[in-house]
């Protein structure tokens, strides 16, 4: 009760002292002021709770989702080693992949090597092009031209991977076949398809990196008498290097995880690649082509989950690399 009396006093005092009339209090009137209502949370406060609750529950949902995905893949992926007693070292170092035959035929090395080969080759081919395009867009082209190029690159990002795979199957594979012989399926075809796919990713991130170089660096360089090109390769590129590397790693992460387009052009033979035009298989292509034919809970199925786990670990590794380079860049 004391409290209520106190509050009434405060309200009265506030009414007496106000310089700008308090709309709400005036409307209600000092006498009719309902203390209960005034001490309850206002509508705005409830909105606050509502908004907070919404964002918190969304975050909670995402956390549960991520945790359960990782948990699910880990449980199934590790079952190969715990239930089926496959030797981890054997899994990573043997090239004999035939999980239907038993635990001594679960070796993923050929796929690991192929996955890294296509990823690295695609990044090596794509990076010079991406940097050149990005340099043109930020340093040479007019604003209009760079905006046009930007939309072209965004278009390339938006094309579904199955379309890239289809183009690769109908154009690149026959081309490779007519030039190098064989079937045309292999690492080279996959590299060329992935090159087109990672180019826009690396380019747009490199554009951001170059745009982030402060303009006064360029002006200072020009003031020292450097030509435009000297400024670019002595100043702009040097400053932007950490972020360009980040761009390349993002591109590599995309190439590493790409399944469908690669599966269509690589030939899907789990063999150690001995040249660039012999059919091979990546971790992802093996997953997509095999998952429908295995029975849940059996060794061939668990072995595929192990491949998925390996992909997950690699994705984490790429993320870690990006963080590491980003931190170095800040120093």
């Amino acid at each position, binding site marked *: 009760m004391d409290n209520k009396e106190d509050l009434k006093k405060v309200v009265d005092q506030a009414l007496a002292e106000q310089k700008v009339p308090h709309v709400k209090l005036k409307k209600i009137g000092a006498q009719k002021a309902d203390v209960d209502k005034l001490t309850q949370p206002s509508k705005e406060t409830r909105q606050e709770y509502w908004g907070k609750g919404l964002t918190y529950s969304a975050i909670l949902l995402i956390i549960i989702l991520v945790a359960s995905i990782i948990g699910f893949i880990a449980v199934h992926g590790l079952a190969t080693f715990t239930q089926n007693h496959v030797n981890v070292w054997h899994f990573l170092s043997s090239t004999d992949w035939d999980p239907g035959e038993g635990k001594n035929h679960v070796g993923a090395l050929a796929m690991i090597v192929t996955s890294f080969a296509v990823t690295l080759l695609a990044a090596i081919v794509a990076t010079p092009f991406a940097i050149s395009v990005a340099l043109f867009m930020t340093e040479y082209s007019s604003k209009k031209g760079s905006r046009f190029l930007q939309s072209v690159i965004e278009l390339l990002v938006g094309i579904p991977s199955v379309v890239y795979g289809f183009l690769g199957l109908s154009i690149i594979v026959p081309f490779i076949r007519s030039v190098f012989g064989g079937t045309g399926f292999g690492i080279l075809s996959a590299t060329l398809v992935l090159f087109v796919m990672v180019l826009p990713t690396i380019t747009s991130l490199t554009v951001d990196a170059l745009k982030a170089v402060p303009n006064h660096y360029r002006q200072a360089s020009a003031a020292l008498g450097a030509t435009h090109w000297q400024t670019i390769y002595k100043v702009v590129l040097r400053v932007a290097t950490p972020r360009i590397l980040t761009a390349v790693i993002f591109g590599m992460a995309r190439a590493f995880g790409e399944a469908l387009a690669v599966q269509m052009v690589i030939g899907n033979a789990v063999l150690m690649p001995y040249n660039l035009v012999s059919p091979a298989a990546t971790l992802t292509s093996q997953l997509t082509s095999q998952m429908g034919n295995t029975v849940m809970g059996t060794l061939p*199925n668990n072995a595929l989950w192990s491949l998925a786990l390996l992909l997950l670990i690699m994705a984490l590794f790429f993320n870690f690399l990006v963080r590491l380079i980003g931190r170095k860049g800040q120093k």
Partner: protein
Amino acid sequence: MKKHKLRNLILIFITILAVNLLTACQNNAKKVTIVGSSAMQLLAEQAGNDYRLSHPDSNIVVQGGGSGTGLSQVQAGAVQIGTSDVFAQTQKGIDAKKLKDYLIAVVGIVPIVNKDVGIKNLSQVQLAQIFTGKVTNWKQLGGKNIPITVINRSKGSGTRSTFESLILKNQKPIKAQEQDSNGTVRRIVSSTPGAISYISFPYASDKNIQKLSIDHIAPTNKNITTNRWQLWSYEHMYTKGKPNAATKSFIDYMLASKVQKDLVPKLGYLSINDMKIYRNSKNQVVSLSKE
């Protein structure tokens, strides 16, 4: 006003969700989900469309996913019908005793080679030698001097399991490139010199590929019905135990003459009623002519 709009939108969204869930529950009793082999997907989809016309309250959902998926899903009770190109007995991890097998159709498989190879007939032993990697040039088999390029089907796929059990007799195949669709295989074989693979009958019509006879027996439907052409497989529908009324009704429809005489041959398969023999999961053949 804006705030109300947002709230209304959310309310409408939740209502729609709830209504959907409720109707889904109601339909569940009559819902028949069919999952599995891609060969059966085509057949079941088309049959399902016709079935819906005569049974308006039915709810047939057909999905692909592969024979392994079909068998494991039906075993887990997640779907009503699992379709497969192979006998459940041959799949590890599947308890065939719990599943009821319905043979729906028969499909032939034929080895194909690129036209330039210059070979039209091979013996079963020669085929096995090619796919186990013991023969590597067409010259060794009386063809032109072109190296052999083996195109395999995806490991564990029904076509490959059938081919390997009947031709290779469980010898270990060489590791070669794998393609999982009939269409892609046909394209590769027709454009790659020296290529050999095997596909199902309905896909084997292309000018640039050569269908092979095995031991001078031609790959025809007639030869399949008597098992003279041995390279064929059943298309199965599996249910877990006894099927419910809606499921049974659809399976009966698949086995009735409308589908068997009309749709099955149209898609290039053989009706199960045409078969003069029965072959069990261990490839033992029983003649049906006495019955």
